[in-house]
């Protein structure tokens, strides 16, 4: 009853093309944003369970937001442009390490030229964004093979980027400022003189990033560029015939996607971990991001969030249930059970809805629209 478009007339083209053409959708998004931006901090401030403890913010919401952001990036490449990538972890690492270098000052001695390139430490915000840009340029470079290699072959080829950058950040000690162990510490999170330290501040920081990038991404995929990507995804030869340049479309997808992933990587390192090593961006991370996108639904920004929640939070929940209920199981058994149940749920979900949560959501909307009189 509540979800009806009837009576909502669109009188201008602008209204027709609005991001959320249906009023109820707009309200839902507004409420969601309200809860995220105002509700959660308020609840945390008044110590209302479960927001009072740091746990929810620091161990659940923070990684959830950052990985959702990365999943949006992956979704642009895999979901919208159809280029399967298993190198997302590497692009996160590039974002993280270049932001780290830029945030702590870059010094490249060029002895044979007789001078050195020195950049003083940049403000954190700038470092993070430039980290994203570095990741974008690496993305373009590793996107070039996609013009020739397709499908699963491309997926494995992107692993070259994954393993290569894992190695680079382990071996080239310049990137880690010659730290003896190769593990580096994020600079202080100083945004325009505001020190972001407490969990709630970190949460809000990530939330702002995620919101801004989600809106940007949503608009990008609705526009000319996004349509080009989708045309390439659906059939690249046909797209080429109707005048879409595959080179431009594929490389922009790689660039935009790597940029977002790079920013997410910088946030993951600076805001969530605080201190990290290349293993934080290993192949497991790449796979995790790809799972999020597939489970959430290819080609859906909303799906990236749901997928991230499913892949990240469900195992934690499964892991905690037995001990919270007081079932006497060893952590070993719990973890094995967690694996089995998690795997079963993935299979079950895919059999029920092969296109992931995004399709479930849109089906739900359709049903809601007709409720209670379906035809």
């Amino acid at each position, binding site marked *: 009853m509540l979800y009806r478009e009837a009576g909502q007339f669109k009188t201008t083209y602008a209204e027709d093309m609005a991001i959320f053409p249906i009023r109820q959708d707009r309200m839902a998004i507004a409420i969601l944003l309200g809860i995220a931006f105002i509700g959660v901090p308020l609840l945390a401030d008044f110590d209302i369970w479960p927001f009072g403890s740091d746990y929810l913010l620091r161990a659940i919401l923070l990684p959830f937001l950052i990985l959702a952001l990365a999943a949006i990036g992956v979704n642009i490449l*895999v979901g919208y442009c159809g280029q*399967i990538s298993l190198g997302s972890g590497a692009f996160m690492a590039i974002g993280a390490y270049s932001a780290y270098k830029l945030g702590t000052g870059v010094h490249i001695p060029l002895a044979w030229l007789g001078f050195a390139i020195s950049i003083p430490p940049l403000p954190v915000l700038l470092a993070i964004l430039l980290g994203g840009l570095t990741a974008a340029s690496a993305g373009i470079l590793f996107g070039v*093979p996609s013009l*020739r*290699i*397709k*499908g*699963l*072959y491309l997926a*494995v*080829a992107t*692993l*070259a980027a*994954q*393993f*290569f950058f*894992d*190695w680079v950040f*382990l*071996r*080239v000690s310049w990137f880690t400022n010659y730290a003896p162990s190769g593990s580096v510490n994020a600079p202080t999170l100083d945004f325009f003189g505001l020190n972001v330290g407490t969990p709630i501040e970190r949460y809000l920081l990530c939330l702002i990033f995620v919101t801004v990038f989600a809106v940007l991404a949503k608009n990008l995929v609705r526009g000319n560029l996004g349509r080009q990507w989708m045309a390439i995804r659906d*059939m690249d*030869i*046909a797209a080429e*015939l109707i005048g879409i340049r595959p080179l431009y479309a594929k490389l922009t997808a790689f660039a935009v996607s790597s940029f977002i992933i790079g920013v997410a990587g910088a946030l993951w390192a600076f805001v969530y971990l605080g201190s990290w090593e290349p293993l934080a961006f290993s*192949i497991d991370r790449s*796979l995790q991001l790809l*799972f999020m996108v*597939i*489970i959430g639904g*290819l080609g859906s920004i909303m799906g990236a969030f749901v997928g991230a929640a499913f892949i990240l939070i469900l195992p934690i929940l499964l892991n905690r249930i037995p001990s919270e209920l007081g079932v006497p199981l060893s952590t*070993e*058994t719990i*973890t*094995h*059970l*967690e*694996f*089995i149940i*998690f*795997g*079963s*749920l*993935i*299979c079950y979900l*895919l*059999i029920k809805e*092969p*296109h992931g949560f995004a399709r479930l959501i849109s089906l739900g909307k359709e049903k809601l629209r007709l409720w209670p009189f379906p035809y």
Partner: protein
Amino acid sequence: MIGLGQFLEVLIGGLMSGVLYSLVALGFVLIFKASGVFNFAQGAMVLLAGLALVRSLDLLVAWGFPLWVAIIFGISFAAVIMVITAWLIERLVIGPLVNQDGLTLFMSTIGVTFILEGAAQMIFGSDAYPLRLFPTDVWLLFEDLFPGGILVNKLDVWGGFIAGILVAGLAIFFERTKTGRALRAVADDHLAAQSVGIPISWIWFVVWLAAGLVALVAATVWGTKLGVQFSITFLALKALPVLIIGGLTSVPGAIVGGLIVGAGEKIAEVFLGSYIGGGIEYWFAYVLALAVLLVRPQGLFGERIIERI
């Protein structure tokens, strides 16, 4: 600086370990060829087969059976486990997902990976279990020709021998048997195959079973090399570049890919690695794969991808 003896030794060692990767890659090829599913669970299947084998073997030996009886029964037991696994996967996961997109099927095999890893370790234990089926000592060849000789590991030779038999067997199976021909028909076009009366779910069960048995063979060799333990699942990542170089759909391709990757990465690591800090073989294999793909996008022996609008 680099002696010929050393070069030959590294080359031979590389070729041999490449064949061992091929053992894992073969499982991928079988399933992809017949059903278009990129089976991420192959590593987990090796773990499951290995654990089933080594645990039953240990138990039988502890009960006082002679070793050869234990080995025969252990292998049969593991084979039965693989039959059940293949049947369950086809019934519960792959069957219901007929005609779905490749990425969805890939994701579902990841679900299977989680289930297999959890279940295998829950049932059979998560410790490291030593397995000694093959000799692991070495031969030193041409000792009079090169100082120190050329070192060849017997296990590697066994691995190469087994891989050879396996490929020959699979080739005969594909080319000569009725099921094999049906399998190729399904691989070409499963709707057409179904319409001429080929029981598609039976065929898929057969490929998953074949992949399971290949996993068991891989587990005997790799289990002897490493001991049967969780880390064995990481082999899947070493098998991917092999698979891609050879082509996703070619059985001999898996062997040739293995030889190229093994020789390439070992030579790079030993002779190039020391100059740039070492540890390069992981990414070198993938860069090699990338280079091959740029020349032949479907791998060396893969079926040419023909796209129509």
